[in-house]
């Protein structure tokens, strides 16, 4: 099914391309959002990716590799968006203010942990975030990631290692800063 759509779209069939867009957009947008952590930048990256797919699809020799190639395009578009001048964005998290429904200690802890992880994740480079998303969100193996990124498997392992280490360092730095604030308060 997907292969047929790819083949038809590669020949210039606009209806097939529209169907391909419907099939692929959600997963591509999800990847872009998780790399960029910004809905507007992710939307721009998705649009650019779909246009690139339309323009470059005839050069995809093996239609069965469309999914991997589309991930490659969205990762590149996302890192390009991240490196470009970014919009100033602020993520607001709304917490329930009803005392009766106030979250328990575990729930507060989960929110705090998520916020801490969010701060640490945003400190990573776009390339580091991309490998973490491909591995931890899409569940790709290093071999699959190597195909998507067009780099050797060894380089994938290296990037994954350094990205995880950078995230851990960011989390620890955040933890130290929080402890300092609590002590001084």
């Amino acid at each position, binding site marked *: 099914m997907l292969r047929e759509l790819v083949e038809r779209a590669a*020949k*210039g069939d*606009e209806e097939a*391309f*529209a169907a391909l*867009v*419907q099939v692929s*957009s*959600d997963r*591509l*947008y*999800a990847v872009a*959002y*998780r790399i960029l952590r910004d*809905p507007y930048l992710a*939307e*721009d990256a*998705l*649009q650019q990716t*779909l*246009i690139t797919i*339309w*323009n*470059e699809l*005839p*050069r*995809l*020799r*093996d239609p069965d*590799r469309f999914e*991997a*190639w589309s991930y*490659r395009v969205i990762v590149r578009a996302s890192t390009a968006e991240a490196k470009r001048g970014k919009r100033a964005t602020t993520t607001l998290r709304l917490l329930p203010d009803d005392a009766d429904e106030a979250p328990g200690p575990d729930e507060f802890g989960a929110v705090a*942990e*998520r916020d801490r*992880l*969010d701060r640490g*994740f945003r400190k990573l480079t776009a390339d580091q975030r991309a490998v*973490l*998303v491909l591995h*931890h*969100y899409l569940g790709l193996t290093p071999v699959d990631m190597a*195909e998507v990124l*067009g*780099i050797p498997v060894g380089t994938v392992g290296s990037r994954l290692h350094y990205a*995880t280490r950078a*995230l*851990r360092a960011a*989390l*620890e730095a955040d933890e130290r800063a929080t402890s300092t604030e609590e002590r001084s308060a």
Partner: protein
Amino acid sequence: MTGSNDIDRMLASYLDGGPRRAPERATDAAIAFAAAHPRRRDPLLFLKPDVMARRGSLMGPQLVWAALLIVLTLGAVAAIAIGTRPSQEPVVTPPSGVTPLSPSPSITPSPTEFAIELFDPSNEIRTPITIQDASGTLVDAEPGEPQDAEPVDQIEATTDPADPTRLELVWTCCGAGSEQPLPIDESGKVWRLARVFPCDTLGGADLRMTLTFSEPVDATTLDLELVDTPAASGAQGPTEFVAIHQPG
């Protein structure tokens, strides 16, 4: 200190949250882009590398193709250059029965007047034809081969089935040797071919002439008419005008 397993678990949970549905604005824009930019066939597509190729891995074959293309192009250019070298005089072979007035094409440079010369080999008589086209639809005139069939004492017109803009005229060579004007009026519907009558070479080959127009001409719709008039000298009898009427 956060362990590896903790990091993995936290990351998986963290990344699992977030939107999963693409905004329609982006997808609609991409589909509209595709509709506005229909893909054209790229003749050089085979020279371009696969989008999933790793850098350097597939550039070899592409470079080989490119080099081969350059070599073929250079070879073709060289062959053309050698083939068009002015080392030989062009050989012009006139038609067996009809000889143009000059070695150049039989059409005069004038855009409204075409002069050609027909040749009857059996009587060795040259007949100049001057066509004055006032309609602006005539684009070419050329002499044809003489006809071996019985001569016709009238003019006949036939549309070329392969090219409906070409019309062949056949008529008996009367008044041979004298100039025969063929005026075409401004409407392009009435043509007159004047010839001296009586004919002194009746029984000779009929002459042919092919006219090319800017638009198709259907010979079956033409109204052919013979008009007898006195000879110009007044001593040899009437002059015959052959008129072709194209109904409007």
